[in-house]
């Protein structure tokens, strides 16, 4: 992070340019939505744009592109736990407890018996 006045002065234009780029990405997000893409493709496009915008905010406005290692360490831990949290929905899909089993007819035996 630039803390000296000269470095900060040089960053002013960058802040405005990033702000403008974020607004352009917002327009692209809305425009892509009007194309009525297939749902999986629309989700992919919207999330790619959102991740790009989020990275720009974090890297430039929050000065994460040039931070101390303690902050990177804390955020790495956060990213790991966040990934675990986001994987929770997949465990609910894999969970078969309570799922009705196919009925076995009279005289039939499960395979292998």
């Amino acid at each position, binding site marked *: 992070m630039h803390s000296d006045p000269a470095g900060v002065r040089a960053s002013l234009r960058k*802040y405005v340019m990033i702000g403008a780029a974020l607004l352009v990405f917002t327009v692209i997000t809305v425009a892509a939505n009007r194309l009525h893409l297939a749902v999986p493709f629309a989700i992919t496009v919207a999330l790619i744009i959102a991740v790009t915008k989020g990275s720009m*905010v974090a890297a430039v*406005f929050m000065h994460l592109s040039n931070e101390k290692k303690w902050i990177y360490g804390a955020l790495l831990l956060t990213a790991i736990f966040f990934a675990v949290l986001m994987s929770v929905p997949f465990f609910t899909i894999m969970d078969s407890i309570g799922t009705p089993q196919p009925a076995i007819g009279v005289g039939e035996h499960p395979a292998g018996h």
Partner: protein
Amino acid sequence: MNIPYTVEERPDSGLANGKLGIWLFLASEVMLFGALFSTYIILRTGATEWPHGELSVPLGALNTVLLISSSVTMVMAWAMLKLHNWGRHRLYLLATFALAGIFLVNKYFEYSDHLARGEGPSHSTFLAIYFTLTGLHGLHIVGGMVVMAYLLGPGAKLWKQNPDQFTNRIEYTGLYWHFVDLVWIFLFPVLYLL
């Protein structure tokens, strides 16, 4: 008694206490919103049908523009302090506060329109998660505005006593504010577009 490391950096971490503190707080916020996003995925993948076009995309897009603009004015407010331009700093911080206020007014119109049609949180699963996510986000906006109001009002006196500490406070407020913007960047497509 002076609290140590409010301005100077700790020799072990190379950070002022407030900087590490706000980042740890933001890490907990990531988990809070992450839990709700995870809930959204479970609800949506488990639903037999999911409504489309229930929310006003122009209003949502306008709110995105407002928050992005407020992030720019917030970082400029910090930069102006670094350049010792007090007048410009006040102007940018006031602009950030005003943009946040307009965001909340828009949200009020959106909420009141839904509630007038009897579409409260209990109306559907979609509206339940919509009100939960945007309501929590709205509370964060209010929290940020309270801090900004303090820094514009009584808290501004610190600039004359300890300009470096005041600059750090603006930086930490900015980090929080950019995070609130970042959350909205994901909320907008997830709730309004997909």
